[in-house]
């Protein structure tokens, strides 16, 4: 290691020493502490979801927290939190209630999707009096998307979507040169097949992309409303296409002679593997959005 590197490490270690940390803690003003509290609550929710909720809920939470931050305008210089007399106690009560519920949460639970919104409201009430909360409304609206998504996911019947996904899977595999038969939501290849049902219908991927679309439209709105509307249509369609690719891969794994094919099937069927396809869908959507936006900006530049 170079002398410079050693010196940098010594300086870092000195900065991390207890007296230095305490000194910095004392120099934090209310604004820093409010930001720290918000960040720690965000980390608490990530930890809670990681420990108790399904993986797709964790991804939704990451998207919503990121989105809430994205649509929050930067505070003016010298801004300090200044809660109202009653709002302060309501805010504290909300945060305490969220912590209490979080500590009792053991497994998958719908109420977990309300917690970021309630904590967001608590934090906002600690930041400003009731009459001056307008600035925070877009962030709260993004946080409210989490329970809305969960309710839509829970209430939407997956039957028709399963059949549509099976049809798309059949088309994808046929395009790839395979001989495919489909009966309802069952896709058959020579040597095996898959039954598209439940989570395999891809409702969660579809909703995740819709969530990304809402956040993008709020944070970086297009010039015309119809363009925003079009992105709301493109997002779920892209989700269906990506999910059909996942189901095609599962069907090919089932009929393959791949060693450990059961493991590969489980990987892409159950948890992290399906997240790969969610990520792919989001990547494609963001690319499409940015591409279209760049074209609009370029068109404006040439006028």
């Amino acid at each position, binding site marked *: 290691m170079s002398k410079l590197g050693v010196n940098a490490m010594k300086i870092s270690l000195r900065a991390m020493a207890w007296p230095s940390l305490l000194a910095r803690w004392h120099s934090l003003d*209310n*604004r820093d*502490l*409010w930001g*720290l*509290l918000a960040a*720690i*609550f965000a*980390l*608490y929710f990530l*930890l*809670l979801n990681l*420990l*108790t909720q*399904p993986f797709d809920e964790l991804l939704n939470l990451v998207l919503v927290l990121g989105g809430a931050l994205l649509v929050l*305008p930067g505070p*003016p210089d*010298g*801004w*300090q*939190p*200044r*809660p109202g*007399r*009653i709002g*302060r*106690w309501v805010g*504290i009560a909300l*945060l*305490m209630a969220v*912590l209490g*519920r979080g*500590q009792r*949460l*053991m*497994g*998958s*639970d*719908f*109420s977990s999707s309300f917690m970021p919104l309630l904590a967001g409201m608590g934090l906002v009430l*600690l*930041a*400003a009096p009731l009459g*001056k909360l307008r*600035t925070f409304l877009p962030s709260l609206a993004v946080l409210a998307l989490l329970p809305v998504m969960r*309710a839509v996911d*829970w*209430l*939407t*019947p*997956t*039957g*028709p979507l*399963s059949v549509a996904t099976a049809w798309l899977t059949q088309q994808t595999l046929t395009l790839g040169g395979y001989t495919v038969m489909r009966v309802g939501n069952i896709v058959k290849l020579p040597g095996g097949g898959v039954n598209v*049902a*439940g*989570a395999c219908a891809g409702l969660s991927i579809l909703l995740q992309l819709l969530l990304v679309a809402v956040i993008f439209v709020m944070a970086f709105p297009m010039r015309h409303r119809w363009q925003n509307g079009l992105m709301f249509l493109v997002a779920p369609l892209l989700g269906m296409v990506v999910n059909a690719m996942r189901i095609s891969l599962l069907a090919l794994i089932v009929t393959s002679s791949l060693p450990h094919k059961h493991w590969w099937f489980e990987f892409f*069927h*159950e*948890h992290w593997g399906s997240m790969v396809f969610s990520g792919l869908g989001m990547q494609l959507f963001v690319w499409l959005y940015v591409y279209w936006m760049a074209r609009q900006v370029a068109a404006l530049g040439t006028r």
Partner: protein
Amino acid sequence: MSSSQPGPTQNGKRGGLPLRRLLVGLTVLTVAAAVEKVVGLSAPMPSAEAPSSLSLDGYRISALQDSAPRRGRDLSLGTMRHFRLVPLSGEPAIALRLLPVSSRMGRDLNMDAIGGVAPSLALPEKRIVYLEVANATGPAPKADSMNMGRGPGDPAGSTTRLQTCLTPTGQAAVESYMLEGEGKAPGKLGLRPADLLRLIGLQQARHGCLAVQLESGASAGGQAGVGSVDRQRQLKTVWKNLRGLLIGSGEGT
């Protein structure tokens, strides 16, 4: 955000307690809650115990020693009941183990994971077999999935154990996606009271099943000989007889 705010030195003392103290207190409390969550997390105990006595036509059943319940991080185990089933037909005796299991997340609810926390249910060598359920209701044929394999002390290649996990709804399976019971009806839009309670957060989803293991001794030949085939057939027959008896036979709630 409003810029007409007091300076940092004013410290927001409206409402009695200084804001700084409140923010520091909440920060410390949240960190403590996070640490407590990581350290103290555990799966709920199973809501029902396995039956302590069984009676089945054609068998003489005696109860052996139970094992104590155990709380775990991902899976919690109820009391493991242990029985000896002696067929009146003169066939060899079979050992039956019943273990109620409750999972925190549902994704951990599978026979491999159960074998990981309950060594007497571990199968070093296994294959999944499907057995059609007789008298199943509904339009589609219904099948139980189960592991068949050997115990750690049995000769390689032999089949001495049959395992599956039975949910309260009568589904017998070994994989988590069959057991976690999170699925909603595919074509229905409507709420049952339990769904509504879950939707507003008053009821948490419960993931649990009754792990069942039937075990015969290894046949004299050890490997897959005629004796081994007979044992496999016997295990499947006993399972078919036991299935109806075990559904909804849990004790307590």
